[in-house]
């Protein structure tokens, strides 16, 4: 009888432990999406001889206001989705573009990311979870916010520039043992995909603007040349100088 009771306790204990560990590893993502009406499929047609090539000249990334190194991944993703919509004859990066004096669309993408890992909440919840000897790990969920604002400038061969903007955000909720870099990759992936799709919807909407017959190729083509002032949010910038005598 005692042996049977001990066995049941052991089984119950094992089940509770498995349940605790499983619940402690859970994670989910919530995206802030626009109404479905703005995501409805959009179809336009373009004649093949009307298609012009597109060159992605650059991708700028800022994270929480600070400039970041360019990302090959997002550049490839942008080119991939541009190829998918089929509006342009070719889509390539500036490095791989064939020299052309003909009609061409130049693209520039700015990705402004905002990350918030909620460090204060993570610290306090971490202390509580630790103090409970991890028993509260399945109950207390932690959060990680990610928001992206994408701006796509498309410059036609005659110098006219169209700007497209979109933004999206999402929150990853996770239990302590579910914290993994993959979670953030998934969150960023969903948000970026949503933004790129929304951008492409806007571009496809302007299909007539990008047809070869939409504007003549000027003998004296115009390029828009600009430099944007990038000032840090703080007006004070640390500068160090060394004097050598």
């Amino acid at each position, binding site marked *: 009888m005692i042996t049977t009771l001990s066995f049941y306790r052991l089984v119950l204990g094992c089940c509770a432990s498995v349940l605790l560990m499983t619940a402690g590893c859970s994670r989910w993502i919530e995206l802030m999406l626009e109404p479905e009406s703005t995501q409805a499929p959009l179809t336009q047609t373009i004649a093949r001889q009307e298609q012009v090539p597109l060159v992605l000249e650059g991708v700028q990334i800022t994270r929480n206001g600070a400039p970041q190194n360019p990302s090959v991944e997002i550049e490839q993703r942008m080119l991939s989705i541009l190829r998918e919509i089929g509006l342009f004859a070719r889509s390539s990066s500036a490095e791989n573009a064939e020299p052309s004096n003909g009609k061409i669309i130049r693209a520039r993408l700015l990705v402004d990311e905002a990350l918030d890992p909620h460090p204060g909440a993570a610290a306090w919840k971490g202390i509580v979870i*630790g*103090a409970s000897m991890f028993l509260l790990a399945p109950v207390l969920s932690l959060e990680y916010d990610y928001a992206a604002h994408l701006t796509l400038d498309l410059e036609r061969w005659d110098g006219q520039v169209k700007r497209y903007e979109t933004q999206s955000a999402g929150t990853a909720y996770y239990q302590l043992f579910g*914290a993994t*870099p993959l979670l*953030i990759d998934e969150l960023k992936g969903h948000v970026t995909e949503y933004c790129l799709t929304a951008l492409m919807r806007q571009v496809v909407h302007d299909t007539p603007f990008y047809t070869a017959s939409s504007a003549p190729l000027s003998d004296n083509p115009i390029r828009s040349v600009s430099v944007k002032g990038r000032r840090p949010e703080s007006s004070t910038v640390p500068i160090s100088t060394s004097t050598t005598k």
Partner: protein
Amino acid sequence: MTRQSRRVIVFLLFITWTIPRLGWAEDPPGRLTFGTQEIGLTAGYLLPHRLTNRHTTKQSGPALMPSWAIVLTDPIGQSWYAGQILLGAEVVYIQFQRPELTHGVGFTPKIKYLFEGFHSVRPYVEFAGGPFYTDLAGRIPEESARFNFILTAGGGVSWFVTPRLALNAGYRFHHISNAGTRFPNLGLNSSLPFGGFSFYF
């Protein structure tokens, strides 16, 4: 210095010089991302602190602390205090060699703040606490219960010899007492200079 000690020092110097040259040179060392896990092994030697006249025991001995932690945030803050929060746990084993050969083992959840530091050198502070069982209690005037709690606070420096491997050195203050569950409960206080390594994945 004995011949064996010299060999150990030469071996450690060789390892320290060699490991950074084995690869991973393209990644900046010490850059940890959210969700990165750390497993580590820390060893040190416990030195007694008799804080009052009633404390008489000079407990000392080696301590071994295997640990696990997870990075819960990306780098936060903009100034010298910029860093990352890690949450984890460690097992504490202490072999008390004085006043008697006895043992103690505990399990302590811990929270750690790893400063951004400079390049591959990252200072940190940590705090841990949890249950601790020792058979030293009952043989000394300060402690009567075998079931105790151990509280630890300290700091150290991690030197990332590769992006995945760090050598650690630092100092911890240990307090062991039974939270008033039995008397006497003066508690044992100790310093623990330590060294160790952490592996990140």
